């Protein structure tokens, strides 16, 4: 097969997708909100599904969060991973139920869990795609999370593109310098084995390189007052000065809560439980 440059399904594409997700470059409703309110919204959406076994309610929440995903403009990579994850789980449930002699009951029980996890995953995607690391870090700081945790979030994101880039380089090095398999094997299994092996081996140099470069970072942080800021509160107040709850925040939260309530009411009126399905 002739090689060509691809814009999707390549390492380069994954890197760009990660950046797009991290820095909310696609915009979306939640990205215009106060980050603390986004976290609050997320807390509501992520906790609520655990309080019920009512399938009607769960389906409603699932739909609500699907709408949130659309509003947040989640990118194709995350969506794919999500759908892939759900799909694989469905297959796994079927296989597990069949293998272990389960009946429809087990199947329903497991799909209830899938519905719950799906709803929560979508809420997470919608919230975190919309929060760039700075906002997330500031929101954590505002909610009195430890200053170092808040810093780590933003620093971790800043390192992300660099680490992916470095991974790409080290991986390319392995690609060029290790030997390609002589025979492809069944379904190219030898190639697959080589690629997985290279991907794992690539972490070793990256760890060492990062460990070396971080020495400067830690020293520089000291000179630039990171530890000073954990003692002195003025920096924190300045940093968080811009956070402000606006009408949009109130609107989104109110509408979301009302919809959740509506979903629960609907669930009360037309409840479906897995025992019902077994009838």
């Amino acid at each position, binding site marked *: 097969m002739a*090689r060509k440059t691809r814009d999707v399904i390549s390492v380069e594409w994954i890197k760009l997708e990660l950046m797009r997700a991290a820095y909310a470059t696609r915009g979306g409703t939640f990205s215009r909100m106060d980050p603390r309110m986004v976290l609050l919204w997320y807390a509501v959406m992520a906790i609520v599904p655990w309080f019920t076994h009512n399938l009607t309610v769960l389906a409603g929440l699932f739909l609500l969060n699907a709408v949130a995903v659309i509003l947040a403009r989640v990118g194709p990579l995350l969506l794919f991973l999500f759908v892939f994850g759900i799909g694989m789980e469905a297959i796994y449930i079927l296989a597990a139920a069949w293998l272990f002699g389960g009946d429809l009951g087990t199947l329903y029980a497991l799909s209830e869990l899938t519905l719950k996890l799906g709803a929560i995953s979508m809420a997470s995607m919608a919230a975190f795609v919309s929060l760039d690391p*700075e906002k997330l870090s500031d929101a954590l700081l505002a909610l009195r999370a430890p200053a170092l945790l808040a810093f780590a979030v933003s620093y971790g994101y800043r390192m992300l593109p660099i680490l992916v880039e470095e991974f790409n380089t080290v991986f390319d090095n392995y690609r060029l*310098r290790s030997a390609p398999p002589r025979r492809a094997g069944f379904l190219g299994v030898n190639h697959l084995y080589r690629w997985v092996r290279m991907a794992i081996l*690539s972490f070793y140099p990256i760890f060492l390189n990062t460990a070396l470069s971080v020495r400067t970072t830690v020293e520089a942080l000291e000179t*630039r007052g990171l530890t000073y800021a954990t003692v002195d509160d003025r920096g924190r107040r300045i940093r968080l000065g811009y956070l402000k709850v606006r009408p949009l925040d109130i609107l989104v939260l109110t509408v979301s809560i009302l919809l959740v309530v509506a979903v629960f009411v609907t669930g009360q009126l037309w409840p479906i439980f897995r025992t019902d399905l077994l009838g």
Partner: protein
Amino acid sequence: MPASPVISLENVSFRYPGTAEDTLRNVTLQIAEGDFAAVVGGNGSAKTTLCKTFNGLVPHYWSGEFSGVAEVCGIDTYTSSVAQLSSQVGYVYQDFANQLVRPTVRDEIAFAPVNFGHVDHAERTREALEMLRITDLSERFVWQLSGGQAHLTALASVLALRPRVVVVDEPVAELDPARAQEIYQRLEVLNEQFGLTIVTIEHHAEFIARFAKSVVLMADGAPVWHLPVQDAVNRSHELAEHGIPAPQIVQAAHRLGLADAPRTVPEAARALRAHAPVAATASGTASGAVAGTRSGAGPRPSLEQFTRPAAEQASAPLPVVARATAVQHGYRTVHGRLHNVLDELDVDLRRGDRVALVGGNGSGKTTLLKLLAGILVPRSGDVEVSGTNTRKKSAGQLADHVAYLWQQPQQMFLKESIRSDIALFPRERGVPGWEAIVDDTLSQVRLDDFADRDGRSLSGGQQRRATLAIGLAMRPDVLLLDEPTASLDIASRDAVVRMLDQLSGTIACSVVATHDMTLVSEWANRVLVMEGGRVASDLSPHELFDQPDLLTRANLVPPQITQLGMSLGMTPPPLDVREFVDRFDGLKLQHADLHPASADLHPASSAEMRAYGTQDA
């Protein structure tokens, strides 16, 4: 020079925890307010440790045994803290990219003022951006910045604390010469217009001579001397002993018998013009050729004489080893746009070519190398290496013919020792006698003694040689190197150039992407200038330096000696000191000393020089 010292050390000694010897020994040193001091010295002379005492990292962050008194801006560093001293002393690291911790430039610069609770942080950020004239970068993500921009950002982020002293650790190390010069020019502005005291750690005598006001020579943990820059430059032999070779113009001036070492190219040109009559008559009688040119038509060696060696020109063109045809390539930006880098590029690389690929940042040098190596395949067009289209084979298979060496050596160290790194390719591919190949390559790059060390623990020059060995052990037809001399001190740099020189026997064709014009002039026999996604010019080094407008367009800074030759009207300009000295005696400069105005950086063509001659006659 203002009298009050801003930094004053008295009998300062420091020992890192767990070491047997003092790193700093009884240092007594004063740096005056408003000084531009260069700290120089060989590896292990404690330059960096010295500078870290200025902002209290020694002894507060690096807690070891500290004795003596260090006062910075009147503050005793021992009883102070890093936080307090940071507002007085800014520190820019050698690996400055690791000092950037925030996503955007503006955030990065505001980071320290916000941490220290300065209410006027926005004002300080704006001020720092303007001082370095990088306001237009403020919304960029730090990972999008070029090396030079990242350095300026790191500098701005320490300026935002409004320090009185700025320490810059080896700015030249990780930047190309043009960029480094820019950084120095900004530092000069900070020093002269804003009155900041600047301390740089520097290996490159060229920059020291041109920008510093005073020089501190360090050896074995203590200053040998601290002298005004002219006195320091005059002691070029002493500097050379401590691993700082004299700049090319100083070498030339010495060989031509000038008393005072020139510090800049215009200064050298002026001095040599004044000096010329003596030199010309002294040797003019010896070489009869000069007498014949006294009539007013200056000596003009033909350009052809300096292009390809005659033997190469005479024979038929040598076989092509790599070829790119109508190559178009680009990458997607984070916003989804396609950014074109190469556009309908055609190039043939032949056996025996030592190609220097030059051009500004983003001109597509690295992309072209990666296409030649088969790491990338073009969006359209074709690349052939050793007769194979890169689309037809995987990058791993192409590696049998072509080797690509990355710019950052540590990214090429995959194994626990450089021996295994070098062995990786021949061993995995079952090359017969691979053990012997590894041993030979190790001794070829003179790393036998370090064979079992992890590449990361080696010095910069050794790392570069190790990557070179990795490439050599692949036994490629085509060797591609990305900036092989970047971030090396001059001695290591020369070693790498010598090694490249010796490769011609084993490798059919080498291509080097570089900003290092000294490498171009000393090593290459063919220069490809990249511009607008194509090869804009394909010429010899002599021809390149004979075209000042091309140099400016491609953002290239010729080596000092070439600049000097240009400003003295040598065409084509000389490529190294020896050539300059040889040809200088033949130059007709007697009249030029009456026209000091012509001694500037703009290369006066030989025609102009002749015109001066006739006027005076």
